[in-house]
């Protein structure tokens, strides 16, 4: 199963990864706030991830690392 | 023994620069410094690693200089007054990034497009900054073809030593004049430049050449540090020549072609029993303040001879603390004062205070 990790404190909550995800398993965690004061992106269901790295491809801030 | 050759002033600068290890020249055509660029165009392609590039503008030329200076190599550009105005942006960035480089200004009359005849009316621009922000250039003023060569080498050495741009401030007469000149035949020793961008080779942290500091405390610190270096330059690098100043009662101050004219006038004054002397600043930044201050203790008048409407006269007045009258003897717009005009000014000064 692919592994996706977020360097959460770098996230600006722009949501480009959320729209890019073909499995729609990414969300902006509105209930959380990171060091920068943004609500960061997170994965809702790791088991559905196919490791396509579309999220990381569209992330402007190199928040996401994908392993497969 | 170094060879002695007959050369135009502009060509002497070019050859001296090459011998000082400057293998990169960028310029844009403008009268009356064209011989310099033409000489570089002929010589550089014949030298290993030599680069001559005619830039699309003065602005591009000075920024190419900025690029080469960033790599730590000796580099120069040359122009004349209107072109040097265009270069001011780049000069400010070079000063702000603490880079050594040589800018040659073979001055012509202004303002605006002005004319193509000799002038010294870029004194303020050269010595007071020229572009935006707090900075100085080391400004050297040759008064012979020999000095065109000697001061070129010195300008590169000083620029490297103090990590700041240097300017050779000549004029159309100096540029066009032919005189015998002895050129150095040995390459100077280059100092290490660990700050230069040459590629990290993955061996060190990246070097950054930059003048942007958005935090005002940091920017202030760079300004203070730079001015500490400038204070060293003012302490160590003032250069001037005195002629018959020991017992002088009238002091003439002039540089470049004006100094040559003034020297003749001083000789004539001495013949007629007037105790005149000459201070010839070779650096106008740093300005020979102490020599002027000393002259103010034993002279009754100081005459500033300039090819401008009176610019250096302000530095003389400051340095002499206005202890004695400071007067102007000048021509402008490309005209050069005759020795007679200077002699008359000396005579008037000598008589007026008796």
């Amino acid at each position, binding site marked *: 199963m692919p592994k996706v990790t977020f360097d959460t404190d770098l996230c600006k909550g722009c949501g480009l990864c959320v729209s890019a995800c073909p499995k729609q398993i990414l969300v902006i965690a509105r209930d959380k706030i990171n060091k*920068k004061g943004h609500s960061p992106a997170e994965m809702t269901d790791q088991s559905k991830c196919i490791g396509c790295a579309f999220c990381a491809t569209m992330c402007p801030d*190199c928040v996401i690392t994908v392993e497969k | 023994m170094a060879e002695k050759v007959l050369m135009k002033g502009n060509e002497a600068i070019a050859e001296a620069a090459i011998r000082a290890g400057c293998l990169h020249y960028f310029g844009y055509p403008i009268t009356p410094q064209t011989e310099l660029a033409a000489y570089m165009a002929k010589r550089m392609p014949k030298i290993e690693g030599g680069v001559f590039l005619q830039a*699309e503008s003065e*602005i591009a030329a000075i*920024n190419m200089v*900025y690029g080469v200076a960033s790599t730590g190599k000796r580099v120069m550009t040359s122009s004349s007054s209107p072109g040097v105005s265009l270069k001011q942006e*780049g000069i400010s*960035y070079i000063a702000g990034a603490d880079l050594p480089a040589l800018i040659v200004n073979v001055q012509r009359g202004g303002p605006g497009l002005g004319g193509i005849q000799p002038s010294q009316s870029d004194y303020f621009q050269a010595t007071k900054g020229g572009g935006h922000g707090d900075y100085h250039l080391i400004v050297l003023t040759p008064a012979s073809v020999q000095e065109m060569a000697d001061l070129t080498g010195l300008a590169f050495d000083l620029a490297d030593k103090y990590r700041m741009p240097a300017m050779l401030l000549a004029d159309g007469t100096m540029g066009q004049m032919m005189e015998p000149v002895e050129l150095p035949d040995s390459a100077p020793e280059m100092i290490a430049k660990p700050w230069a961008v040459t590629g990290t080779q993955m061996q060190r942290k990246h070097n950054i050449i930059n003048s*942007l500091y958005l935090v005002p405390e940091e920017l202030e610190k760079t300004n203070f540090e730079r001015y500490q270096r400038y204070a060293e330059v003012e302490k160590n690098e003032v250069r001037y020549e005195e002629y018959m100043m020991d017992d002088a009662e009238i002091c003439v101050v002039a540089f470049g072609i004006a100094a040559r004219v003034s020297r003749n006038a001083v000789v004539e004054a001495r013949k007629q029993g007037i105790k005149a002397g000459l201070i010839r600043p070779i650096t106008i930044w740093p300005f020979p303040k102490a020599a002027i201050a000393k002259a103010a203790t034993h002279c009754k008048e100081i005459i500033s001879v300039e090819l401008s409407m009176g610019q250096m006269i302000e530095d003389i007045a400051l340095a002499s603390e206005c202890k004695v009258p400071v007067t102007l003897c000048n021509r402008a717009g490309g005209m050069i004062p005759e020795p007679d005009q200077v002699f008359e000014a000396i005579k008037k000064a000598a008589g007026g205070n008796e």
Partner: protein
Amino acid sequence: MAVVFEKPKALTDAPLHYCPGCTHGIIHRLVAQAIDELGIEGKTIGVAPVGCAVMAYNYFSCDMVEAAHGRAPAVATGLKRSLPENIIFTYQGDGDLASIGMAETVHSATRNENITVIFVNNAIYGMTGGQMAPTSLPGQVTQTSPYGRDVTTAGFPIRICELLSTLDGPEYIARVAVNNVKNVKQAQKAIKKAFENQVNNRGFSLVEVISSCPTNWGMTPDAALKWIDEKMIPYYPLGVYKDRSAKEGE
């Protein structure tokens, strides 16, 4: 388990200062990926512009020079003429490259200066707060075209790729976009080729990257990417405008 995607080595750890959703970050990453893949970080020197990317010198791990507004290609020319074995790139915005620095752009291209130019076109001046750019679209509302860009007084947008490809000098001119995964992958290829060309001494390579500015366009990051598809790309068609190596291969 193998890493499929991670931050390239040629980027430093400094957090990017760009606004949320600004695609400058993607373009930085693509440049760094190209540097990593070609193994050239140790000999690369980048030139940062004036504009939003002014602090790019903090983000790339290679040696960096900060240039005056629009002068990056002239500075890069100096760097390359001094160090012909090094790899020199500029990273410039539309105001920098297509307005104040137009002369430097055109002349470095016509000299076929062996440098790589990354041109970020987001149709606006971002850093100064959203003024009209040379590439702002007809009718586009900005701070200095509050009634929309009126082409009868402000002139038409400049298409840099089309303009430069009329010159005999340049080696490679291409326009890409970073508004979706497919386009980002295309952009990655073009940027890598622009660096490869320099490694192979082929000459001036420019990649125009259509980028977004959600903040100054007044849109969400997502809407900004759609606006690129709907408005920008029709005016600035993507593609390779000049490729001397491809022509030679024919």
